[in-house]
């Protein structure tokens, strides 16, 4: 089945300024959300979508204020329900380019059910998860992604909850597009976000975001400028998985699991390094990549991007088919169908 595109194309070239709203941005100075907003504002002109057809839907939390700061149609909804509201909007009007913005608590605790079902359905939604591993707006309680053992307001003796890995969760729910980005590098984040709407189906971009008030430096072990090159790897489809300041480190699959190796040591050559294939149907390697941490660099970029008919396309095809071949052309036909009689 040929993929159909429902969102109308922009008739003019937009710039970032076309999407800036007149509302005062009220996030804390230094919050990672500012950078993510900038990335999104840079993304919209690149999508080529008509501005009036862009709809931003969010839940509740610091990050969910974002629709007010973007000059598009927007819905700041209720805690956890952004996916469900977005699903209805897209179903009612497939011509909308629908963007869902949520935090980690919003999307994976109270809204976890909606997230996994949205992902499994594979409707054309662009989901961004702002992951700061804490509840910020309620001032510092642990979230479903808070690191095990962390002391927070509601875990004074350390959490004993095992955290979710968002990428892993998305792929377990049969996600067709999963990516990870950093708030502190807007350029690459914009590139990743621009790829999201090009994917037919649900795309989920996890952005590692810093809450400097309640969970400062939670991602510092990988995002600090001093260590970033050695602790992260930017995945690119069709290219070997190489990272490190010296670009001499790589990821190798040893038959059992992934390992970080150094090219030129122990006989390792470039040929031993895995080439990233974001389109592999099987989630095995993609899941391993999403899980990389500790000795292995955290994976950034598009981890998974597979083709599957989207719910949007399947739904519209079914609607078109039913409307073309349906027995009833209007409600009067239906009312008078079956056994009726005249008195």
């Amino acid at each position, binding site marked *: 089945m040929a993929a159909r595109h429902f969102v109308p194309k922009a008739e003019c070239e937009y710039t970032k300024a076309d999407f800036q709203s007149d*509302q005062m941005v009220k996030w804390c100075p230094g919050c990672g959300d500012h950078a993510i907003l900038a990335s999104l504002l840079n993304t919209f002109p690149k999508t080529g979508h008509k*501005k*009036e*057809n*862009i*709809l931003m*839907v969010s839940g*509740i939390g610091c990050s969910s204020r974002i*629709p*007010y700061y973007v*000059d*598009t*149609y*927007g*819905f*700041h*909804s*209720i805690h956890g*329900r952004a*996916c*469900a*509201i*977005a*699903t*209805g*909007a*897209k*179903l*009612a*009007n497939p*011509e*909308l380019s629908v963007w869902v913005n949520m935090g980690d608590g919003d999307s994976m605790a109270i809204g976890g*059910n*909606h997230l996994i*079902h949205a992902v499994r359905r594979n409707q054309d939604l662009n989901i961004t998860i702002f992951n700061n591993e804490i509840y910020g707006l309620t001032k510092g309680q642990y979230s479903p992604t808070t690191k095990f053992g962390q002391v927070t307001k509601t875990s004074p003796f350390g959490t004993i909850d095992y955290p979710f890995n968002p990428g892993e969760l998305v792929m377990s729910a049969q996600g067709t597009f999963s990516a990870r980005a950093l708030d502190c590098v807007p350029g690459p984040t914009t590139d990743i976000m621009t790829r999201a709407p090009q994917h037919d189906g649900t795309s989920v971009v996890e952005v590692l975001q810093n809450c400097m008030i309640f969970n400062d430096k939670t991602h510092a072990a990988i995002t600090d400028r001093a260590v970033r090159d050695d602790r992260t790897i930017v995945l690119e489809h069709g290219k070997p998985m190489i990272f490190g300041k010296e670009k001499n480190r790589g990821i190798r699959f040893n038959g059992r699991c992934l390992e970080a190796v150094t090219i030129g040591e122990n006989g390792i050559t470039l040929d031993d390094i895995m080439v990233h294939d974001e389109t592999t149907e099987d989630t095995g390697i993609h899941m391993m990549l999403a899980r990389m941490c500790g000795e292995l660099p955290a994976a950034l970029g598009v981890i998974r991007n597979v083709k599957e008919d989207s719910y949007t396309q399947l*739904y519209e095809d*079914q*609607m078109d088919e*039913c*409307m073309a*071949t*349906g*027995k*009833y052309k*209007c*409600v*009067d036909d*239906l*009312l*008078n169908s*079956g*056994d*009726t*009689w*005249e*008195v």
Partner: protein
Amino acid sequence: MAENIIHQNDIVVRFAGDSGDGMQLSGTLFSDASALTGNDIATFPDYPAEIRAPHNTIAGVSGYQVHVGNHIYSSGDKCDILVAMNPASFKSNLKWAKKGAVVIVDIDTFTDEAMSKAGYTSDPFTDELEREYAIVKAPVTSFTEKIGKEQGADKKVYEKCRNMFALGIIFYMTHKQLDQTFAYLERKFAKKPEVVKLNKAVLTEGYEYADKVELIHSHIIEAAHAEMPKGRYRNITGNVATAWGLLAASERSGRRLFLGSYPITPATDVMVELSKHKGLGARVFQAEDEIAGICSAIGASYAGALACTSTSGPGLSLKSEALGLAVMTELPLVVVDVQRGGPSTGLPTKTEQSDLNQALYGRNGEAPLVVVAASSSANCFYWAYNAAKIALEHMTPVILLTDGYLGNGSQLFRIPKVADLPSITPRLATPNDPNYRPFRRDPETFAREWALPGMEGLSHRVGGLEKCPDGPLSTDPENHALMTYNRQEKVNRVANNIPDQEVTGNPDADLLVVGWGGTAGALALAVEEMNNEGKKVAYTHFNYICPLPKNTGDILRKYKKIVVCELNNGQFAGYLRTQFPECPMKQYNKIMGLPFEVGELKDCFTKILGE
């Protein structure tokens, strides 16, 4: 056929058997055949929550009551004819039979084991019982088996035809022909001629068996033909009527129909029905839960659809927070609540009117919305249509209350023309209107305008946080007071566009009977019978619940005695008292998961008249 036919205005027949005995089908076939031959009808399925409870137990008994004749308002109190397909159904349903009723039992099923499962320790057919009822001990199973074997059918196949034997007896007893049902069987099993042949043969055998039983000969009852307004008619259940009303409203308003719902008894059939009509543009979404059901509808409403969600009591509880969001964002939304017995899971397959308080008040904050209620299976069509009209024209969520009795029950429906229904004019904003503001209001109705994503020049943000009239967020105290007032006033002003409340029965009576929603059939009949018997009773029945019609107070203040009748503990009475504290009101309440019976209502009214 016997010559001594008893002519009655109406007959009530109750089919009872084990779940899976085909009682719902027998009832439907009987009511359809009656309707097609000129009777007015009303039906009431009374079935258990379990799909197939253990065979031959009381828990597994499924019933279907059919009321046919002239001027049929309800599914009737007690039955003239009871069919009991096994000991358990005999035991649990005999209380629904009138004294002197004909009771047809499948005597073959009265084995020691089955009787013991039903809780009988001795022969159920005592002399006393045989004096009270005309009990026909029909060998339903063995006759069906005989025919099945003659035709070389599988045991599994012919066992399912037992209900046809019973139906044949009923057709004979009610002086009806078999051709309607033959035609149905031919349609239904068009690809299985051997099944058609078998069913027809069993049906005929039942009919002929009845002709040979002396007891039946003396009990042939024919119900009167209905005097009904001219028009084209069909049989319809409340849930299907609700679904069709929404489809009609979508067509008439030009807005796409969206339904986001989650399966829940007894509301599921609204979604099941609309799912069939993608061809008419119905966009149905089976959500992952009740919350996603309403939230998807709210998203669809923001995007410009006639958005609806259907549910029952526990589901409405789950939707509470989202309903508040719909109130706050002032988006059109229709919430259909097919009420059932509560609280919690309660009595899922039984009827009640106990979600009224939840519909009126079940949200945080000052969160007014419109509540309307259907009062018959057929008028679910008009109330669904009307709920959509109010939602779209007044930019408000509307809760439509129906109930399990209306939703699953069926009635004759005079088919309207969609073009003759009242027009619906959604309050759409004009693209590029420089003066558009998200909460700019119509000075008459206080409704805001609906700007849809995709419209140029109207981009704006809505959400659960308080806004100022121009759209942006506001925590200003005066603004919150103003917006709260405006949201309430908008709902209050719906009363300007609804007809006056009417009083029927004898308006000059001392006693006013007040009802609302699904109890109209029994209440109207009770009041009519009382007045025919020379006792003066006035009656008013509410469909508009919030806001109430403007003349409600004038009506209530006119009567010395008022009794508010409802299938709950007095929720509507309490609601009326808060608005009309000057009017003393009595209550008649029933919380048994069952509809009112005319008899109990008349007893109640007679007692109040005597006080």
